[in-house]
């Protein structure tokens, strides 16, 4: 057999080997300890708070949707990115969660409620969302154009799914905690969303008032983190006693 055929054959075999899926080695969430117990609602604490922005936020970029008539037709006037959504200093779209302190001594009810992430007007809605490990995330396409749902995790498995027609839905789950997983659409490069995945229920995304609330937290000392897509991360240590109710404030600053 001529050498060239052998070389081409080797390349094709190698390509086939690479293309085949290997064993599932995606990371898993840590298992609870054998003596882990459900959180006692009678002694649990509540943590409320607000995220504020000091300074004048940078102007949000105007999204250029001209490359797809279906996208530009869905809007009248300029469409702005959702990077800095600020209302009287209150910062929206901040993911707040307990980062450390829970350990593996608590059991939580399985999260079966479907979390929804829609593509509407060629934007992901909501822009920031949180869910639990193994909780279903339904990503849908409400637009009369095609999208691809491309998740870019570091520890979970990356995926890129086609949604060619309006009404198309895909349900995905994540196997390991990860804050945050960026989502994009490669067809429309302005589309972005961020998904926070945790192995416990203590997380929230700030709304229009910049506020958040974490309920039914077992007493203890925790590190609370606030994440923003451009302003980065901040953390605070909080000690919660039985039936405590505390308020904290995260302050991000811009020049």
């Amino acid at each position, binding site marked *: 057999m001529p050498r060239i055929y052998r070389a081409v054959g080797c390349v*094709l075999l190698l390509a086939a080997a*690479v293309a085949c899926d290997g064993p599932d080695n995606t990371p898993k969430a840590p298992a609870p300890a054998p003596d882990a117990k459900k959180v006692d609602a009678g002694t649990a604490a509540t943590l409320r708070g607000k995220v504020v922005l000091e300074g004048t936020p940078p102007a949000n970029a105007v999204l250029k949707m001209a490359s*797809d008539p279906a996208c530009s037709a869905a809007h009248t006037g300029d469409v702005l990115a959702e990077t800095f959504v600020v209302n009287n200093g209150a910062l929206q779209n901040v993911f707040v969660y307990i980062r450390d302190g829970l350990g593996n001594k608590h059991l939580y009810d399985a999260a079966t409620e479907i979390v929804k992430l829609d593509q509407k007007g060629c934007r992901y809605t909501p822009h920031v969302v949180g869910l639990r490990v193994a909780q279903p995330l339904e990503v849908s396409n409400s637009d009369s154009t095609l999208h691809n749902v491309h998740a870019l995790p570091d520890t979970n498995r990356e995926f*890129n799914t*086609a949604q*060619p027609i309006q009404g198309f839905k895909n349900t995905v789950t994540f196997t390991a905690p990860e804050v945050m997983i960026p989502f994009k659409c*490669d*067809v*429309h490069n302005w589309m972005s969303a961020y998904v926070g995945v945790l192995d416990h229920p203590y997380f929230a995304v700030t709304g229009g008032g910049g506020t958040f609330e974490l309920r039914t937290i077992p007493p203890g000392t925790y590190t609370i983190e606030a994440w923003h897509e451009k302003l980065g991360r901040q953390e605070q240590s909080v000690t919660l006693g039985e039936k405590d109710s505390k308020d904290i404030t995260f302050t991000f600053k811009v020049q």
Partner: protein
Amino acid sequence: VTWLHRYAKFVVACTVLLITAGGMVTSTDSGLSVPDWPTTYGWNMFTFPFSKWVGGIRYEHSHRLIASAVGFLTIVLAIWTWRVEPRRWVRRLGFLALGAVIVQGILGGITVLLLLPPAVSIGHAGLAQLFFCLTVTIAAVTAPGWRYAVHPVEDATLRKVAVVTTALIYTQILIGATMRHNDAGLAIPDFPLAFGHVIPPAWNAKVAIHFAHRVGALVVTVLILATAGHVFYHHRRRQELTRPAFFLVMLLSMQVTLGAFVVWSTMDPVINTAHVVNGALVLGTSLLLTLRSFRSGFERLVQPIHQFTASPDRQIPRGVRT
């Protein structure tokens, strides 16, 4: 052979167009805008409605269609060469090019299905240049000027410097592809300095790749100037050498300028792609010069053309360049 040569040049031009389309895919970050392969959002690639060529799909899908066209053209080239070309090694080159374009298509599909792993994407970029080199070679050796050469150049120094230059240009392109597919194009955000210094004061993998590409550019510049200088000094009457040498210097200056503007424009997709395509042209031109410097070595492989051997002054048919 003349028509085969013209056709081979057409394939070279189409390959440049294909490299342009591929460059735009990476420059606009559209590599995954069509998540499936070989289908396009479930459609047969050739029936995907034009109305759906929106956003990044325009770049990725047109790249796939142009690639299919070049694949078809290469099949024709291989068969045509096989049927009319008397030199066995040239016939084999045709099928080597066909094998390369098939593997290239599969690599392109695999890199999409595996979500653009840098190693596969860099392999795709590197093989693209090798395929381009094959088409340039076929076009060069089917040229009448190649076949009917009277006194081919005999210059061992030129051969050495031309081979080293071509090899280093290809290496430089591979470093550039590594930089592109690892998002290191702006790892050093200023030019000509690096973070305000000659040598970057802080290092990581991306800075190292980016800086290697800049150092590579310097080395390639010196080698191209050395090659061209040698040609103009020793072979100034040999048009088949001075022409590619001249174009090589022109393309080099354009390439360095484009490289600077890639950084200054913060990776404008059009400038970025122009840099990629011009890099391929630098490689192709250097390869042409190298092949011509080796032409005498192929003489014994050329079939005798009886009607042109009657007298030395009638060896070259009218209108044929050497």
